[in-house]
């Protein structure tokens, strides 16, 4: 039971990553692929954030008063802030990559009039779209 409680969350994060990877490889629709990429990303991010968790730790903001008296700060009382910083920026970058991915999908849709991978490949092989100019 002790072992189960200290590990179950890693297994569930792995499950999230597996769902994302399967979607990226197996799905035919480009937007579905992009959503799967988002799921894979959050799987990794949640794994990193969970490394920072500490039982008995509070949020990483030092308790402070107006006068600025703080006393002695014990690191065991605060969760590890470093993974939070790394993942915070990763989330913001993920919205950038999402924008670029959707823009690419939109461009493909304007050229080939479909979001489905197999139809796009079919039409490229037939010489439609971008190749004619």
């Amino acid at each position, binding site marked *: 039971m002790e072992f189960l409680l200290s590990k179950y969350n890693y297994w569930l994060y792995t499950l999230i990553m597996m769902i994302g990877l399967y979607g990226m490889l197996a799905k035919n629709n480009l937007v579905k692929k992009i959503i799967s990429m988002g799921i894979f990303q959050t799987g990794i991010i949640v794994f990193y954030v969970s490394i920072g968790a500490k039982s008995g730790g509070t949020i990483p903001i*030092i308790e402070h008063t107006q006068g600025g008296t703080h006393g002695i700060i014990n690191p065991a009382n605060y969760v590890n802030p470093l993974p939070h910083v790394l993942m915070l920026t990763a989330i*913001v970058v993920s919205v950038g990559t999402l924008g670029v991915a959707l823009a690419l999908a939109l461009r493909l849709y304007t050229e080939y009039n479909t979001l489905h991978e197999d139809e796009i490949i079919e039409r490229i092989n037939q010489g439609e779209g971008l190749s004619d100019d």
Partner: protein
Amino acid sequence: MIWQFDLPILTLIVICGAFAILVKDLLGSAIIFGAYSFLMCLLWTEMGAVDVAFTEAAVGAGVSTVLFFAAVHRTSREVRSRKSGRKLYKGLGLLASGILGGILFYASGDFPGWADPASPAATHLSPHFITRTIAETSVPNIVTSVLADYRGFDTMFETAVVFTAGLAVLILLRIGGCRTAGPVWQTAAAIRPAYGDSIIRFVTRQLTPFIQLFALYVVAHGHHSPGGGFQGGVILGASFILLAISYDLNMAMNRINEKAALLLANSGLLLYAGIGLLCLLLGANFLDYSILQRILPGVDGVAARSHAMLGVEIGVAVTVMAIVMLIYNNLVSNGTYEKGL
């Protein structure tokens, strides 16, 4: 860390993730993905990662969902199901995710127990940040001080990545695109009568200044509470996206047009790099803020760090706001800026 709270949320997240890729409708898929992000944000709050949860609520559950809507609106929402021909890909996908899962399940045996205060991650570098942040930077929110000061380089280039993503969207849709106008999904604008959503418009108009004020508070108060440049910037951008959705794209473009947005995106990044360069010119290392006490009147080195962090956060917020707006405007109009959602 309360597992009775944690386990149901994680289970819901896995279910949402699975359904987001199984549903046969892209709009439904995007909504389920939004719910997935929101549950994720609850999970992070429970783990004490308040800044991450705040960012996810603004970015993942908010702006990402709107971007999916914009893209689906410009293309088609149906997912065609073909019975045969995808067997190979499905098999490969199952195989690859099976291998990944197998390796990670096997490796999880070597991980330190969850939320173990004696784990390597909690004992080596982070105690320095936790114990020294007040003495070295006078900023109580450790996430802000690590983000803008201890790891300032990292954050500067992350901002540059966001900026580059905005430029890439511009090149793909605005400059490279618009050769053939794609068919527009005709429901929203055509069916909706002009007077039908006056309540939404009124509420949006009244709410926007408060949203923007809140965003400025998030930027300015990031030193003492969850928040900072990234979150505030996204909320600012979202307020303009809200205007663009409830009225039309022109309404938002009249407030901040493409030229102004690009100028803002540039100047935010330049402000960040400029503060770093100023430190260099004064004789310290790049982004070593304490030297700024020479030009800021009446502050010591520690307070100078705190003030310079605010400047850096403002730069980040301005860039992120402009880029989020640019990405939305281009996606929703396929680069033409003619008609919004």
